[in-house]
């Protein structure tokens, strides 16, 4: 709840968005009995619709989740007409949303099903339908936001994982590390590389590291500085960094950037870099 910012203040704001007034709450109270008495009809309307959608069959076919979803939906409808729309009410909606997320229900499909539910409610509460649709809109807002929030969380976790994989520090042999860098290096990645390298120097007790940039097409001044800083920091930890695979373009841009090349021990290719590292360790 909190990670989504569902504070009591936020809940009140959302009620204002949908225009829910005390009159609406009173009207809904008037429809309460009628809806509670016909609750199963409405639950079936919702799931009946979903059964017709191929994208929703993940839920419909799921023998474990479907009964739970139906029960939650029943509770949800009771909540809808309860007249109390507070944190507990929102909690209930978020619980359903989590279930929908687990079975991969698309927001668009959910919206269609919800609309069917509203139409079903209208059949027994025609007078109060405007008020009911307002609280329905509230529900939809909360549920869709929860689905999106979940999805964004997954994307964040995956990006982190990809970033981890893309900055590997390999131990070639005792005391020697190899850092193959491929693709685009931005300052964030450059810093990750440095942090990984320094941590590895400590844990592997490395004295030599070859940073191979064969796969790097361009380097801007920020990244070039990071590379220099990496070399300097590694040196403070007693490890010598050799940079291999600088392309002609990258080499030229480093010169143009005015980088202090005295600091860089560069070797043409990866093989040469590894051999040079061997020589350093042999000393």
């Amino acid at each position, binding site marked *: 709840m909190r990670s989504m910012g569902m504070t009591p203040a936020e809940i009140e704001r959302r009620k204002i968005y949908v225009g829910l007034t005390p009159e609406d709450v009173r009207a809904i109270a008037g429809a309460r009995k009628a809806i509670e008495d016909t609750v199963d009809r409405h639950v079936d309307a919702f799931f009946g619709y979903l059964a017709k959608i191929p994208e929703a069959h993940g839920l419909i076919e799921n023998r474990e989740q479907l009964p739970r979803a139906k029960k939650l939906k029943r509770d949800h409808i009771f909540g809808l007409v309860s007249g109390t729309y507070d944190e507990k009410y929102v909690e209930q909606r978020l619980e359903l949303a989590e279930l929908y997320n687990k079975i991969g229900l698309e927001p668009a499909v959910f919206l269609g099903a919800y609309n069917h539910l509203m139409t079903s409610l209208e059949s027994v509460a025609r007078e109060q339908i405007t008020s009911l649709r307002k609280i329905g809109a509230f529900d939809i807002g909360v549920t869709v936001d929860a689905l999106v929030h979940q999805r964004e969380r997954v994307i964040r976790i995956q990006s982190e994982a990809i970033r981890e994989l893309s900055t590997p520090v390999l131990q070639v042999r005792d005391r020697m590390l190899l850092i193959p860098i491929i693709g685009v290096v931005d300052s964030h990645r450059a810093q990750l590389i440095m942090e990984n390298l320094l941590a590895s120097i400590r844990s592997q*007790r490395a*004295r030599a590291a070859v940073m191979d940039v064969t796969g790097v097409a361009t380097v801007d001044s920020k990244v070039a500085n990071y590379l220099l*800083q990496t070399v300097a920091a590694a040196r403070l*930890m*007693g*490890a010598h960094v050799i940079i291999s695979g600088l392309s002609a373009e990258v080499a030229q841009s480093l010169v143009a950037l005015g980088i202090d090349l005295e600091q860089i021990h560069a070797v043409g290719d990866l093989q040469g870099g590894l051999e040079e590292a061997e020589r350093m360790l042999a*000393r």
Partner: protein
Amino acid sequence: MVPILKQGDTLIASIVAALSDDDLMKFRDDLAQRIGTVRARGVVIDVTALDVLDSFATRTLRGIAYTARLRGAETVIVGIQPEVAFTLVQLGLTLEGVSTALDLEEGLALLARKKQERR
């Protein structure tokens, strides 16, 4: 107070965290004297316990290393932690002219190598 141990012709000093500026100066003078007294050829200063190396501490360490060299001993600073190394580099402080190694073992090995080279 920084304890200074002797191992062969090498002096080993471990700097504990939160050393005052005065203690640091005292250590410098102490060390300079000891180098002469025991005819030390090498000094290892272990800063593993230091979670911060600011510009003052860094300058002092460099000064200690230079003083040691003037008295005929090679200094190696060991135990600079990754975060501290990163910070020093960001500050633009190099320990230029001072040898560094990962830890005490590496520091002693480095001194041994240098000794070989000097022969």
